[in-house]
């Protein structure tokens, strides 16, 4: 074993689905290279579980470069683990020490029922977008792109909000399991752009209502969401969402 490699003890949440009871189970992860990503470490553990005829740990991932939002788990109590602004697929084992005990759990929230082990159902996020997270521009009806002038700082601000990958870490980190950061990022992205203005009032009302009906809690300004967000979406988006919401109510 190369001298920098790690021997770790994992405590992993195992659960066969929403109906059944889950529990933490201990696994050894030996001879782990520090250049591995966290998911590659789990791949290695699963390979040996399969060889031993055991049920491998279910987790999901796709792009493994931090942009698709598929992966996500709570590592030692922190959504996506200890590295700031980093999804779990981009978290590398060089940030752990030999002998560490690592606790791995799913993103827990009423709005995210467990499918298996570390995999949760985030359809609720799609439902929030479906309720109004768009600009109604039918294909073929657009004017020349440069007819809409957008100051650079406005475009940059829209981009800051639009960078959300919909992973759900904000919900997992929130003591109220609120989806406010996710919802407000889409509302802000579209509200600051001139193209998004005509629908901004109906949009914020429908999206907030949908968010509430999906079983997410309310925001009470803990700020945990911003702290774990892998794309550093600012909590100021939530303030904008509230402003937009009140404007819409008063404007009615």
């Amino acid at each position: 074993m190369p001298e920098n490699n790690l021997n770790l003890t994992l405590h992993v949440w195992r659960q066969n689905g929403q109906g059944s009871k889950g529990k933490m189970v201990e696994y050894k992860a030996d001879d782990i290279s520090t250049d591995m990503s966290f998911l590659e470490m789990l791949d290695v553990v699963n390979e040996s579980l399969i060889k031993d005829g055991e049920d491998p740990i279910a987790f999901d991932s796709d792009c493994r470069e931090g942009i698709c939002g598929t992966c996500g788990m709570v590592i030692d109590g922190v959504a996506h683990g200890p590295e700031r602004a980093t999804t779990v697929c981009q978290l590398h084992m060089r940030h752990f020490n030999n002998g560490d005990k690592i606790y791995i759990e799913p993103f827990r929230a009423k709005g995210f029922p467990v499918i298996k082990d570390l995999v949760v159902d985030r359809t609720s996020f799609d439902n929030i977008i479906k309720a109004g997270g768009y600009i109604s521009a039918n294909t073929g009806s657009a004017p020349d792109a440069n007819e809409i002038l957008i100051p650079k700082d406005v475009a940059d601000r829209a981009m800051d909000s639009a960078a959300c990958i919909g992973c759900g870490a904000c919900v997992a980190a929130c003591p109220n399991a609120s989806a406010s950061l996710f919802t407000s990022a889409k509302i802000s992205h579209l509200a600051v752009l001139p193209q998004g203005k005509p629908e901004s009032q109906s949009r914020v009302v429908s999206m907030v209502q949908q968010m509430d009906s999906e079983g997410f809690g309310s925001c009470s300004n803990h700020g945990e969401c911003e702290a774990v967000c892998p794309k550093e979406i600012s909590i100021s988006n939530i303030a904008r969402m509230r402003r937009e919401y009140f404007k819409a109510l008063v404007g009615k």
Partner: protein
Amino acid sequence: MAIDANIPSGSLDEKWTKYKSNVKLVSPANKRKYNVIVVGTGLAGASASASLAELGYNIKTFCIQDSPRRAHSVAAQGGINAAKNYQNDGDSIWRLFYDTIKGGDYRSREANVHRLSEISANIIDQCTAQGVPFAREYSGLLANRSFGGVQVSRTFYARGQTGQQLLLGAYSALMRQVNTGKVDLFANREMLDLVVIDGKARGIVCRNLLTGEIESYSADAVILATGGYGNVFYLSTNGQNSNVTAAWRCYKKGAYFANPCFTQIHPTCIPVSGDYQSKLTLMSEGLRNDGRAWVPKSGDDKRPPSEIPDEDRDYYLERKYPAFGNLVPRDIASRAAKAVCDEGRGVGETGLSVYLDFKTAIERQGEDVIRDRYGNLFDMYERITGENPYNVPMRIYPAVHYCMGGLWVDYGLMSNVPGLFVLGEANFSDHGANRLGASALMQGLADGYFVIPYTIGEYLAGAELKEVSTENSEFSQSENEVTNKINRLFDIKGDKTVAEFHRELGRLVWEYVGMSRSKEGLNKAIDEISKLRDEFWNNLKIPGDQNMFNKYLEMAGRVADFFELAEVMARDALEREESCGGHFREDHQTPEGEALRDDENYTHVSLWEYNGKDKPNFKKEDLNFENVTPTTRSYK
């Protein structure tokens, strides 16, 4: 037998306009009577679903991910091309067309590429209207950057996340139609068979990835937008879920597979660090605007890069290709990197990487400018490697990135199976033997927003479709075949995991059907792949069972198809006795080591047709160059 691509007559710049004027239309009242299945929700699939639903068709949309927003288009970084000529630097529809034809090494269809070029400008308009936050100048006007293989600045971008932003635009348009009820969305579904009734595509069979249930869906047409097959190499920049299965099932049902050996190796990826590696990460080609590729002049020079003075460095791209320098097309940049590493001048622990150095750019423009342009890429590089590219040159190496080959389609994007349309990377159409940077996003969205809405109408209005439902026996037959295959995989009960087989297959394909190919190597590959495939079907071990969320079962089905594809890729590479674009045959090169095309014998699309035997039938579609004369691509 010559294959007809149904290209409209008339001059190149009139074809699409004429097609649109003469196309059969389905009346609004009749559109709602038609059901269309769309498989895949990347740029092509999501834009097609949304646009067709807006027209009034009933759409059923399927995706393999838990949400349509996660399709792998999301990972595209650099940008999207459009012939807007906002920079007044001489761009035009003709020039984008010409660059794409030349970049594809004269192995694509003129008519398709010209249409793509015509549509390109509309895409930027459409996406802007949806709220895609493209980069802007201080004036509020759209910004552009330049990309490899061209001499104008026509690439639009949203930081290093252009694919994500375009996909979220298409996804939001799709979700809007889900909200109106015109689209039924089925996430967590993997298409496992195409159902063909009376010779026409009439539905699909898929597996619900959460419950394991096998499900049937019928329709009047099926649109496949399921991406590329780069994961046949095991290590690629593709997502873990990217696979060939849906396309391969269509091939097994009679659809031609075109140019499977045309795969693109991207020059700027983070090098491999170990056996456990599950994927390779791309660093956008946009980096080559400011980064300079180099290796030490001498392979014995083991000094750290900062201590190697300029006179001991070989900026090999600038030396070999002075006109384009670091911005040569991808295939050329990749081979040049391989060449210097093969000479023993590669850097890093494995010797399989080259430097991409930003020192000159940082000195000239300041670190802030570089951070603004590439900040997120630099951060990603540091997260993965633990090195800071502002201080130490990046180390990069080529990796499999994109597949130009795919299911064959005619001008209307319909395969040879009537009613089966193929869009985006899943088809073979527009990029010939090599794709230029920032053209994949353009093609995916062109196909989905602006081509299929016209061409599907032409088919549906003319096709005489009988009533079909999932009660038809063809559906239960397909369901049985799918179930039997899954059972067979479980019944093997061997010792080796699917990842082990996939890794071994990937090594074979990379070694013999990768950046450089030879007759001996390809014959060897066919032999070895078939041996390994036999072992797979005799010694595979899958955990768990079929009626549950089971990633390893999903992978096993996909790897089984990759084995079959890999063999056809090798056969295709063997048949094509020339070098062109991403297909480099060692026995067909110039004395300087550049690709040597054979226009007399190989100006065609190679088509492979499944016949149940080891060797599929081979057919050709001849390519006619009436507007551009194929010349030797020179970037010197």
